[in-house]
């Protein structure tokens, strides 16, 4: 976290004293009451506004949205948004899986021996049934994310895979197989949201929206309307833009089904057609709508809140020409989406390049 935060300070050309707001994501391996204070003391910051936040996988995007509210209202000038976790090495894999499974309902779901992949497996079965999705369709996204991750020096998973490899991988919670699931990783991310534009390329958050329809999978009333579309609509309305204006995507991908459902519900592909867009190359680095060029949670890795922030960090790098071999044609408008729980908390952000 310190390394990520130092990197963000350097990149923004700011010194510690200029950070007057700090938002810090929760960590399952460090369930502390005051994580932002803990971080600030250790990193030597004395902000006038600071606290931790928790909205599951949507936490990173939710912190960025709040950071913008704080600078827009005049409460803060420079808000450091930071998260990190040693989710892989800080606990046993069993302990991690068990902790995460508790996002299920304590009385109605968890007692059945349900796991996070089981909640997503159930959701996948219903969505595949209603939208006519195949396992091959899901697998396309695993392959795309792996190909992208192979170009990022910090990726967790880089071994080349094919659609056949995904289909042949171990069943975890069918229809989801091992390669449909993200790994458990270590990592940290930091971004600074400022009231005044930095020097050089300016990236502005021009729209944001949220939606929270349910917490648990069983309470998800309609797989075709999880809240993702509602959150996106708010963001697009505020930005005065449509999906057609977007030329870079950073979309949450805890499982292949997550990514496919989000793209279709938000409208970046027609129902049942997202995989076809992958096959056409639309979402590839050189395509019309590059998607998660860092490799996403599926292959870059899932280190908790920081994993969900990586999509925005990568968008920032693409805007500012810092993506190296992953660089796409400089984006004009990027759409970011994160979800927490089982499509439970949704946060949409629209970032635009200025200057």
């Amino acid at each position, binding site marked *: 976290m310190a390394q990520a935060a130092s990197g963000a300070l350097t990149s923004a050309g700011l010194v510690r004293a200029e950070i007057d707001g700090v938002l810090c994501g929760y960590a399952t391996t460090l369930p502390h009451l005051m994580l932002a204070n803990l971080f600030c003391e250790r990193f030597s910051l004395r902000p006038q506004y600071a606290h931790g936040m928790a909205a599951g996988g949507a936490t990173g995007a939710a912190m960025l949205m709040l950071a913008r509210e704080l600078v827009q209202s005049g409460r803060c000038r420079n808000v450091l948004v930071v998260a990190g976790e040693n989710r892989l090495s800080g606990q046993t894999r069993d302990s991690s899986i*068990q902790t995460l499974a508790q996002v299920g309902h304590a*009385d109605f779901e968890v007692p*059945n*021996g349900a796991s996070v*992949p089981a909640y997503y*497996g159930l959701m996948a079965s*219903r969505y595949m049934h209603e939208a006519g999705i195949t396992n091959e369709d899901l697998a396309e996204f695993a392959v795309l994310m792996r190909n992208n991750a192979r170009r990022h020096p910090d990726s967790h998973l880089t071994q080349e895979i094919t659609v056949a490899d995904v289909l042949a991988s171990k069943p*975890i919670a069918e229809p989801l197989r091992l390669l449909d699931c993200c790994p458990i990783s270590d990592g940290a991310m930091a971004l600074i949201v400022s009231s005044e534009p930095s020097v050089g390329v300016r990236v502005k958050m021009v729209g944001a929206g949220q939606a929270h329809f349910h917490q648990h999978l069983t309470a998800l009333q309609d797989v075709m309307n999880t809240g993702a579309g509602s959150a996106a609509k708010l963001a697009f309305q505020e930005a005065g833009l449509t999906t057609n204006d977007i030329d870079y995507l950073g979309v949450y991908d805890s499982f292949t089904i997550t990514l496919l459902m989000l793209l279709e519900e938000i409208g970046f592909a027609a129902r049942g057609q997202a995989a076809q867009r992958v096959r056409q190359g639309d979402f590839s680095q050189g395509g019309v709508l590059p998607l998660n060029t860092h490799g996403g949670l599926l292959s870059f890795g899932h280190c908790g809140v920081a994993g969900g922030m990586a999509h925005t960090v990568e968008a920032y790098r693409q805007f500012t020409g810092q993506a190296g071999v992953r660089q796409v044609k400089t984006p004009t408008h990027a759409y970011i989406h994160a979800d927490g729980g089982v499509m439970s908390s949704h946060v949409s952000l629209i970032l635009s390049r200025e200057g």
Partner: protein
Amino acid sequence: MTNNQSVMTSLAQPYLEGLTEHVLRYQHCSACARAQTFAHDACQFCGAESPGWHTSTGRGHVHAVTVVGRAPSEAFRSLAPYTLVVVTLEEGARLMGHATPGVQIGDAVTATFFKHLDQTLVRFEPLG
């Protein structure tokens, strides 16, 4: 002071006690006459407070299905692979439970009960 967790748990007590008696209970709003998924302080549709509890026929249709190959804890490892479903009960509430392997979305099922370690759980079996 009351422990928060026990307050939250007690809301579902009629359902949990029903399991040990091999009956399926669900919350029902007397104001708008709609069945509730889970247990709520107020009706999820009209907001009327304190929905009461009714007994379900236990029959319904499979809404979603998965086969868990990787159990989340040691307690369930001996059962793996096991089939989990979300069923839409005849009365309209949705409920998660175990199921007979091979059930498909849309199948008509009925609730049976089984004991795993010290807990009574629901297993949905094909009807007829």
